[in-house]
């Protein structure tokens, strides 16, 4: 007990000195659990997050925009893969994590349970959803678990184009025909509040925040990140002539920040619980892909085994090279 206590102390001191934890280092069981949970949730979010955008790949309105969207959704798959890999360094298999997702036991970011209803949603997702995600991800590049931090550095580098391409779509549509501008405003209206919810519950209602901050898994609180996002995004909306759907939104000279209206946490809770507009469809799509891929994965495994057996088989006597 005493020894464990002192280990935990030294672990904390080690982290306080800005050192990274690597897979084989000793770590408190709770740290391991927290990290695995967070990395797998993050990976699931990337993979489920492919779906709302993939919904528009076949309908992208120009060849250029089709290529960009395709590359972006593909990147998200890559990011899911990096994160599953990082989680696997702690001994949990991807298969296990995916099973948890498919059975509805694992969480992923609620934002992906909202539908993509018009082309401007591709802009809004890049601008707002990726924008919110990037705020979080930049912080995670310095997270204390080494493999997670390294995966995040790679992801942040690749994501840098995502938000810009989203804003470009919004900018273009806001300056386009009246129909296009209406689509852009409609997309902003629908994605604004869910994007703010992405930062998670208010600090007062977030029981895990304190420990995660102490362990330097997180570096900023949910509310801090949310405020930064609002401060940065509101002028971007104004710049392209779109209106943020919040009547309480006001610049506060005293704090130097925007004040914004109350978030509908009941909606957030419902979506987390599985009652969002697309929860069932998203999980069904992942399950379908997984089930329909089973025979492919099995066949590849069987083929690899056959190949191994063939390579190990004794060389035929008629083979001249065997002499």
């Amino acid at each position, binding site marked *: 007990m005493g020894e464990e206590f002192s280990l935990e102390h*030294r672990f904390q001191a080690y982290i306080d000195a800005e*050192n990274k934890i690597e897979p*084989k280092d000793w770590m408190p069981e709770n740290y391991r659990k927290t990290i695995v949970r967070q990395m797998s949730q993050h990976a699931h979010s990337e993979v489920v997050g492919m779906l709302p955008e993939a919904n528009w790949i076949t309908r992208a309105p120009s060849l250029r925009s089709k290529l960009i969207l395709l590359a972006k959704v593909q990147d998200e798959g890559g990011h899911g*893969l990096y994160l599953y890999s990082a989680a696997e360094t702690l001994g949990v298999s991807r298969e296990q994590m995916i099973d948890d997702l498919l059975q509805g036991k694992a969480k992923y970011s609620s934002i992906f349970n909202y539908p993509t209803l018009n082309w401007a949603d591709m802009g809004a997702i890049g601008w707002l959803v990726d924008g919110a995600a990037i705020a979080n991800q930049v912080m995670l590049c310095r997270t204390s678990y080494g493999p997670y931090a390294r995966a995040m550095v790679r992801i942040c580098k690749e994501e840098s184009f995502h938000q810009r391409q989203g804003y470009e779509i919004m900018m273009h549509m806001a300056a386009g025909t009246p129909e296009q501008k209406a689509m852009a405003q409609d997309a902003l209206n629908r994605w604004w509040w869910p994007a703010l919810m992405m930062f998670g519950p208010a600090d007062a209602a977030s029981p895990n925040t304190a420990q995660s901050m102490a362990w330097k898994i997180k570096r900023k609180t949910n509310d801090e990140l949310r405020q930064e996002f609002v401060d940065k995004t509101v002028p971007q909306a104004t710049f392209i002539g779109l209106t943020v759907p919040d009547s309480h939104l006001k610049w506060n000279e005293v704090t130097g920040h925007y004040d914004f209206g109350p978030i509908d946490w009941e909606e957030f809770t419902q979506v987390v619980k599985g009652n969002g507009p697309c929860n069932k469809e998203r999980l069904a799509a992942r399950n379908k892909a997984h089930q329909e891929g089973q025979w492919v994965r099995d066949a590849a495994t069987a083929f690899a085994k056959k190949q191994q057996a063939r390579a190990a088989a004794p060389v035929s006597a008629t083979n001249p090279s065997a002499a």
Partner: protein
Amino acid sequence: MTQPDTWPLWEVFVRSKNGLAHKHSGSLHAPDAETALKSARDVYTRRSEGISIWVLPSSSIVASSPDEKEPLFAPSDDKPYRHPTFYDIPDEVGHM
């Protein structure tokens, strides 16, 4: 629902350009070495990050293990003479 026969894990090392060592990029799942190599190209060099790739089964890596009683929490600072800053050289000498 556990699958006994899932694709094994492979570690991917990429050489970004000639003259540099292969550097660990991450890992992936593949049924065999050939597929692992192709997937490594598809997954880890989407932005022309490399010109040469190594893959090897993760299970074949032998890793050193930090001592649990004396975790590697103390950085190995006991050989300062291995570091250039250990030596006092007057600024006038210039960069060395």
